[in-house]
């Protein structure tokens, strides 16, 4: 499999919402290329007819009774908020100004 280019690392950082500096991108590009080169050996099993395992336990749809229980107060829920207003999380603008 091909390695990873610096351009791809720039794209990944954007997808991952990481505003990285140029020197970080240079540094990570080399390291990620090494790591991807090493982990690519999993592809040796790509053609084998083996079911994938996503989880060690064979669980589906674990349910609990739908009951009202004590929960955090609004003050507690907001206690770690970087900014708040009127008992809500205050966030930077999400939609552009129109």
């Amino acid at each position, binding site marked *: 499999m091909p390695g990873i280019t610096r351009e791809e690392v720039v794209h990944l950082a954007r997808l991952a*919402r990481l505003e990285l500096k140029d020197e970080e991108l240079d*540094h990570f590009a080399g390291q990620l290329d090494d790591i991807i080169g090493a982990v690519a050996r999993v592809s040796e099993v790509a053609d084998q007819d083996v079911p994938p395992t996503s989880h060690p336990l064979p669980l589906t749809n674990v349910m609990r009774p739908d009951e009202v229980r004590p929960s955090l107060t609004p003050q*507690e829920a907001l206690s770690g908020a970087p900014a708040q207003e009127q008992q809500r999380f205050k966030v930077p603008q999400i939609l552009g100004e129109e």
Partner: protein
Amino acid sequence: MADLTKLTASGLAGKIASGEATAVEVTEAHLARIDAVDEKVHAFLHVDREGALAQARAVDDKRARGEKLGPLAGVPLALKDIFTTKGVPTTVGSKILEGWIPPYDATLVTRLKAADVVILGKTNMDEFAMGSSTENSAFGPTGNPWDLTRIPGGSGGGSSASLASFQAPLAIGTDTGGSIRQPAAVTGTVGVKPTYGGVSRYGMVAFSSSLDQGGPCARTVLDAALLHEAIAGHDPLDSTSIDAPVPPVVEAARNGSVRGMRVGVVKEFAGEGYQAGVMQRFNESVELLRELGAEVVELSCPSFDKALAAYYLIAPSECSSNLARFDGLRYGLRTGDDGSRSAEDVTALTRAAGFGPEVKRRIMLGTYALSSGYYDAYYGSAQKVRTLISRDFQRAFEQVDVLVSPTTPTTAFPIGERVDDPMAMYLADLCTIPSNLAGNAAMSLPCGLAPEDGLPVGLQIVAPAMADDRLYKVGAAVEAAFIDKWGHPLLEEAPSL
């Protein structure tokens, strides 16, 4: 009175129950030890002096009222800073959560409090539990009490170091790829990764949800079992928690024996990269098991050679998804919000400022492995390897009761040696990762000092899922035989600091 910090957890609980020592005295002795040595070791990120003393006073009050005390009542514990603690800072070793005070307790914390365990404080760790040396903590490294210039293992290096430096007789760790067992191995302590789903993950900050497992750390096998029993069991707040009785771990630890058991040696766990002194102590352990009456069988697990590669696709993939919640909007750090930037830009600036290099590497690696065009080749293949590894274990456990191996290929390496060489760092978890991928139970316990460097070597024992008690049965027998051979517990040979 004898030095209270040198006693085992079960010994301390006995003294407190009989009135020979009060819980407050025991807690004060440990707080004094922290004051005396933690400047050098840096095991703790936060010491909750008042909270610990209040818990201890409550235990003494209970006893004064004639209430029956639990088997760990009044015993101090060091808690890995990955579990939420109501009103007490929880950082996960990251700047992104610096100063965050959780509004709720993790289930594990609730259970510790219900068992009257005294929580001394929160221990240092690799950021978000990503690492094998604790050097990835945003708050500086922890020293190995055997040699402060060396790593105490990771990610739970604060917990292992607190035990080995007698700052606490019990600690909690979490094990995603070896973060309980590898620190135990390199510090001469005991660490257990329970069966996946055996201990609730509610309130444990998620790194890789299908691999993460909290578990007990201690200086003796019995103490680990007592702690295991206190924290394990079904939790409706964790949908992956196993709804079945906890295996009888304490009973097993009290009745150590390997007579008539079949013990498997995995031949893939040897060869290039394994330190000679580690293999020497491991081979002596195998010989000891034979002397104690076990039948030793060599067997092969051919897919284990792809375990590290599969792990470094699966864990980063899950991490890239789990850590998306750190967006600078609802809790934790927010930077760059000058009123003109969009939420998306503020999130990207916050994450760049808040996460350290290893976390960024893994988020990007996971983002890559999950991206369209690469998903089948990387993540899909890694999931197939996971199946093949589980099948290797299944076949092995048809032939033997437990497997043994070195816990780590080498003893503790010097701080700084591998910090900017991710692939070298990842090799520290070569022997521990398969159990995380398969979800079974595993323990590390001390099996001696490597002759070439005088540093602790760990013996790993692996049991099938839900057979955690076998670890303790074998571990207790091995521990007793080693103490008999050495004349004292291994930690007595550690420097006094």
